């Protein structure tokens, strides 16, 4: 009976959504602020990818908030799944890592790893010119490092994992602080927070768009480090519960 009422609710809701959608100006949006940004973004910020100018300049505070959310999620995962206490209490769980890797995977990885890194950094560095940027590149870098751990699980000892965590934490912090520091520099020198400075340079060249590429590099490093540490924490086989 409850399923029946749910179905009625759902069909009513979809009808409502269709009615609402019919009222929208489909394919002819009003673009009150969008048109202004399209017209002025190039003079204002010196980018060719206008979405980047929105992400980093017009709505830079959103991006900072977004980085903070990702950081919060990674902190939360670390807070919940750091089973240091557990492993101490459970001497029976062995620390032998599962080695379901093989020769082919390892050597394919050796080939793939630098390639992935190059692609990731390319996407980050060209964020103001072509589609892509810090987020996408950061994910690619994170996946490159995570593949490394997936393919060679038995080669990394506990101390190595610990030092990886240390390094990741430091990269995470420093890149986040760099993003804010670029913004704060503008604030202290009498402008608004996150206001782009430096000259715009030649439109379309790699060194252009003032501070925006630096912001994207900071975003890329932060996203990469955060997602790597998140994946490593989630994947931590040591705290695998049901292995007995």
């Amino acid at each position, binding site marked *: 009976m409850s399923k029946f009422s749910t179905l009625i609710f759902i069909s009513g809701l979809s009808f409502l959504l269709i009615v609402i959608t019919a009222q929208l100006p489909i394919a002819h949006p009003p673009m009150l602020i969008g048109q202004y940004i399209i017209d002025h973004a190039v003079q204002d910020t010196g980018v060719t990818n206008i979405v980047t100018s929105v992400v980093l300049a017009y709505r830079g505070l959103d991006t900072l908030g977004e980085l903070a959310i990702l950081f919060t999620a990674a902190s939360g995962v670390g807070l919940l799944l750091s089973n240091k206490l557990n492993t101490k209490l459970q001497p029976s769980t062995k620390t032998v890592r599962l080695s379901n890797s093989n020769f082919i995977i390892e050597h394919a990885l050796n080939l793939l790893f630098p390639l992935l890194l190059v692609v990731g950094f390319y996407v980050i560095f060209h964020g103001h010119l072509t589609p892509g940027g810090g*987020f*996408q590149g950061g994910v690619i870098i*994170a*996946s490159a490092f*995570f593949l490394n751990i997936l393919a060679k699980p038995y080669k990394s000892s506990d101390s190595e994992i610990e030092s990886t965590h240390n390094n990741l934490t430091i990269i995470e912090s420093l890149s986040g602080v760099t993003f804010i520091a670029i913004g704060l520099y503008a604030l202290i020198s009498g402008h608004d927070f996150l206001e782009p400075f430096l000259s715009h340079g030649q439109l379309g060249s790699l060194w252009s768009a003032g501070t925006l590429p630096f912001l994207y590099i900071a975003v890329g490093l932060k996203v990469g480090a955060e997602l790597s540490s998140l*994946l490593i924490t*989630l994947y931590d086989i040591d705290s695998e519960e049901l*292995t*007995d």
Partner: protein
Amino acid sequence: MDISALIALIIVFIMLSSALCVLFLPNMIAAVMASSVISLSLTIIFALLKAPDVAMTEAAIGAGLGSLILAIGLKRLNYFNIESHQSNVSGTDPGQ
């Protein structure tokens, strides 16, 4: 009907049917794979909508990272076995 509308029709059909698969397929791995198919279809749709940045993000984060996270979750919840759909039996080695 122009070509982009035709592509959109096919993609939307695939997307919605895999969304139903996510909800009702008994095997969890299949469900996660179906959710990854949704992300891939969304990538194509975003490309159709002339939003290359969004398409790249959806491909990298939705289809790639999201599915990876879900797959790791499957492994830690002992859902990672292909044969039995009555999965999630405690005491089995997840690595097998």
